[in-house]
């Protein structure tokens, strides 16, 4: 007995797997779902040729993407399949594809970014209307980001330390799934027409309207195959060094390395989970089964941190209307911005980095710190949003969340920093690469300068400039700012802004001069904020900030209250409560607070409501006696019911 395809009720589905990020066949759970039990599968990628020309992605990013798609196509060919590059917008084209290909299942990787979530919701709706089942899987991040936020009481964590604490309380990430193979494909096939190349082929850069004359070959070739070669090399080198610390910066680390992975993680040519578990295995092998420290995964966790912070914040890439971003009166100065972006600042260290970025699409993370600091709080006082846009165009691994988050961080616009410290555009480079080879490589015009002057050629005597065949002010620009003066001004400005912020929060009076006090998250992070009168318990200093979330999520009969308690050190803190909560179950309670770092969220949860006024007196006391050298994991505290109870 046989049945006709498509006519039976029990028919196997026809699937589409929609590639966006996650451009890989290994560890791709959504792709596996597309194939599972399916009759046909088609892997699609949407490109809008009109958008390509007008978008602000630079040619390097486009080339990287096209190389990824080429690689994906050739790997799919090995499985008798192909990649379908569709010209157009998903929302316009999907309905036609569903009909034409008789689709009943659509799969894609979960996108955590607000714009992506919105787009995906619209497509899901479209699909449902067309009777297409939609399967979404998380594989671009290690964790389910919503779980992290949930664990933090509904707010994304705002410090990396806090983030690490949350992560350490969660189960380890899921193992990567098997690579798509002929075995997994089973009887699932991809119908490919004669004219596939014309209709669905991967376009070239010229077809997208880029002028590729004189375009140097790619320093970072795109694609999953390259990514998998690199991760092996990356691990080999780590195994060879047998040292898992963050490598110390030197002149060499400034250059693109054949073991670099960040662009591959950005496009999902490399699974972060694969990277995670390979690192773990290697560590265990080398360090004889010791549990690896969180710092081993630094690069992956920072990425995760910013994705978490951004996932519920559609204005994460803006200053205005962004609840976690401090409003700083940045200067609008298009000429200065252009000088920075086009490597004409007159500071060789900055210009060399910006040239490398433009030519190769990647710069070392400390180099990013240097140019970001220079543009924003260090020297030019220009908005981080402008810098972020330039990075978005040029930087291969620039991701919406990570890019915006890092810029906010480096410009002191959000997250937590202790004191204002500017990278010197002369001294920082000199420390890293005293000889100046990096500068000579990217700014050949300065090649003739001796190491002594290569970071500040304007200070070189005329004779040295003449001998170097480069007169400053003629062949290479003079420095666009006086760094000493600019950093003096800017540090003062930052201090002013943060002092004002703290004052509004009642932190007032007792400032240290150079250090930022415990809290300076923008108000919006703390719903229902009100400042607490000085309790007099904190040795005269006023260093804690308590707010409660009056509008906390209310599940039926189950109220949650969050007490945000920001502490700088051990102090007695009074939390005076006049809420209607009867049973107090303090999660992550006292011991958490005594082991506090910068920020703690205590969650107070009650299960039924009764009108009571209750005073919670919380004494966070110290140190050496109770300190046993280990961070304790959260314990539960049950507080008895009663009025005016002192705890």
């Amino acid at each position, binding site marked *: 007995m046989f049945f006709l395809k498509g006519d039976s009720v029990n028919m196997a589905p026809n699937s589409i797997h929609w590639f966006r990020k996650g451009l890989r066949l290994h560890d791709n759970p959504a792709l596996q779902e597309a194939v599972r039990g399916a009759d046909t599968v088609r892997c699609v990628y949407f490109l809008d040729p009109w958008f390509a020309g007008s978008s602000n992605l630079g040619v390097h990013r486009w080339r990287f993407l096209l190389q990824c798609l080429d690689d994906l196509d050739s790997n799919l060919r090995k499985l008798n399949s192909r990649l379908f590059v569709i010209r157009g917008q998903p929302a316009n084209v999907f309905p036609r594809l569903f009909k034409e290909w008789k689709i009943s299942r659509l799969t894609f990787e979960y996108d955590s970014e607000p714009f992506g979530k919105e787009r995906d919701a619209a497509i899901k709706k479209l699909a449902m209307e067309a009777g297409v089942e939609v399967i979404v899987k998380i594989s671009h991040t290690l964790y389910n980001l919503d779980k992290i936020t949930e664990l933090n009481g509904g707010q994304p964590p705002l410090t*990396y330390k806090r983030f690490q604490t949350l992560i350490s309380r969660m189960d380890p990430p899921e193992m990567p799934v098997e690579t798509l193979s002929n075995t997994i494909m089973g009887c699932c096939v991809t119908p490919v027409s004669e004219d596939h190349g014309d209709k669905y082929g991967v376009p070239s850069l010229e077809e997208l309207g880029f002028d590729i004359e004189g375009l140097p070959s790619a320093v970072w070739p795109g694609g999953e195959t390259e990514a998998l070669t690199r991760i092996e090399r990356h691990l080999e080198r780590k195994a060879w060094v047998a040292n898992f*610390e*963050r490598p110390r910066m030197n002149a060499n680390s400034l250059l693109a390395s054949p073991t670099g992975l960040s662009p591959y993680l950005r496009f999902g040519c490399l699974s972060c989970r694969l990277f995670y578990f390979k690192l773990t295995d290697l560590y265990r092998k080398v360090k004889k089964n010791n549990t690896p*420290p969180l*710092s081993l995964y*630094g690069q992956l966790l*920072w990425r995760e941190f910013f994705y978490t912070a951004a996932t519920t914040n559609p204005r994460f890439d803006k200053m*205005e209307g962004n609840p976690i971003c401090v*409003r700083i*009166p*940045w*200067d*609008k*100065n298009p000429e200065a911005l252009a000088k920075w972006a086009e490597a004409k600042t007159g500071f060789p260290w900055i210009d060399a980095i910006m040239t490398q970025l433009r030519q190769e699409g990647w710069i070392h*993370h400390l180099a*990013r*710190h240097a140019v970001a600091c220079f543009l924003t709080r260090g020297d030019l*006082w220009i908005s981080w949003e402008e810098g972020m846009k330039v990075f978005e165009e040029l930087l291969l*691994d620039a991701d919406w969340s*990570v890019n915006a*988050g*890092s810029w906010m*961080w*480096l410009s002191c616009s959000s997250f937590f*920093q*202790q*004191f204002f*410290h*500017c*990278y*010197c555009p002369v*001294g*920082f480079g000199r*420390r890293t690469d*005293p000889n100046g080879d990096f500068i000579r490589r990217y700014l050949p015009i300065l090649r003739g300068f001796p190491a002594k002057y290569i970071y500040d050629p304007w200070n070189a005597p005329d004779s040295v400039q003449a001998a170097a065949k480069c007169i400053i002010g003629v062949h290479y620009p003079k420095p666009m700012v*006086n760094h*000493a*003066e600019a*950093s*003096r*001004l800017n*540090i*003062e*400005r930052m201090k002013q802004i943060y002092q004002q912020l703290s004052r*509004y929060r009642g932190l007032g009076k007792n400032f*240290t*001069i*150079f*250090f930022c006090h415990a809290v300076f998250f923008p108000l919006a992070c703390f719903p229902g904020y009100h400042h607490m009168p000085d309790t007099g318990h904190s040795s005269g200093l006023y260093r804690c900030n308590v707010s409660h979330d009056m509008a906390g999520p209310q599940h039926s009969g189950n109220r949650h209250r969050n007490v945000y308690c920001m502490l700088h*050190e*051990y102090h007695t803190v009074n939390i005076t409560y006049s809420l209607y909560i009867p049973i107090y179950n303090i999660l992550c309670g006292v011991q958490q607070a005594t*082991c*506090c*770092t910068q920020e703690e969220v205590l969650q107070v949860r009650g299960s039924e409501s009764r009108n009571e006024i209750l005073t919670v007196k919380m004494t966070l006391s*110290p*140190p*050496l006696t109770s*300190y046993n*050298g280990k*961070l304790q994991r959260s314990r539960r505290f049950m507080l008895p019911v009663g009025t005016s109870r002192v705890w």
Partner: protein
Amino acid sequence: MKRGQKGGDDAEEGPGAPELCKRLRQDDSEDGAVDWRLLPEEILLQIFQYLPLLDRAFASQVCRGWNQTFHTPELWRCFEFELNQPASSYLKATHPDLIKQIIKRHSNHLQYVSFKVDSSTESAEAACDILSQLVNCSLKTLGLISTARPSFMELPKSHFISALTVVFVNSKSLSSLKIDDTPVDDPSLKVLVANNSDTLKLLKMSSCPHVSPAGILCVADQCHGLRELALNYHLLSDELLLALSSERHVHLEHLRIDVVSENPGQQFHSIKKSSWDAMVRHSPKFNLVMYFFLYENEFGPFFGDEVPVTHLYFGRSVSKEVLGRVGLTCPRLVELVVCANGLRPLDEELIRIAERCRQLSAIGLGECEVSCSAFVEFVKMCGGRLTQLSIMEEVLVPDSKYGPDDIHWEVSKHLGRVWFPDMMPTW
């Protein structure tokens, strides 16, 4: 507009508030609805003080009574003019009509005024225009704040000076004046002194290139109530310190000095130890805050003799040698920030600082290097008095004794609280 300043008003609150509430309640009509007309003005005023200006303005349109309260002088004592141009700033400006209205109706009520000005010359000019119209007011505090580049410096000096002197002449009781990065000059300071010498308590004038050491000396000589002063190093002189420590002078609380090099190889004068000693004798508790933005080779005249500095900030690279001298010459040091240093670890220097600076309670290290064991030793010596300890992760160089993973336990143990190094994102 920010919330109005409440400082000082608390005393005027009076005991009547609860009483008034009760009255309001008793006056409730039968059906339990509150008659808002009966809301006493005192309470309305209290409420208005907590509202942003825009909300107050909306509320003022409710009825004549509320409108009257809106114009109560108390609500207009404190005002912050924000002057921004769309071409040079992302932030909104105070509406010109509001400015006009304030000048017309409330200029005599203004007491605490600040101007926040963006980087454009137009904005600085607008600020001067407003200043020169403040003829019938008596300000207590005035702040001219450049939020981006120092735009007051781009104005014609005479224009700026004539606007500023309007305030000096008309306000006979100025107590705080913040005029950093402006073209204020000696003659205008003389006007200030002539009119406000009895009341002036705070003067901040970092980076005012038109003021000479003689100009600031005149202020110190005459204004005996001066408690806080901020200026650049080139204005600091032995005479100035002696004037500030004269018998008639109140105790100084805060002296901030910015040491900025305008061009490489610049020579800096030095201050006699005897002048500093006189200062400390006169004001034993004063804070001396010094910001250094110098090249490494310009530190010659500094830290040779003992300096009563309490807060030290090195904004550019500072040599090992100078930091070594800091340990020897700064016994009053409380806070220290080193943004950058050369390539050799700062081990002995830090330990010496821990040994000699017995009041050190805060330290921040940026691009420096310290070996882990020296750092642990430093923390052990200082112990719990280090309330601020922010060290960038890269600063700590692992050695045979401590690796990056155990250092934070060791340091936490000595501090008596959990401590971690500061981290910057790896991207």
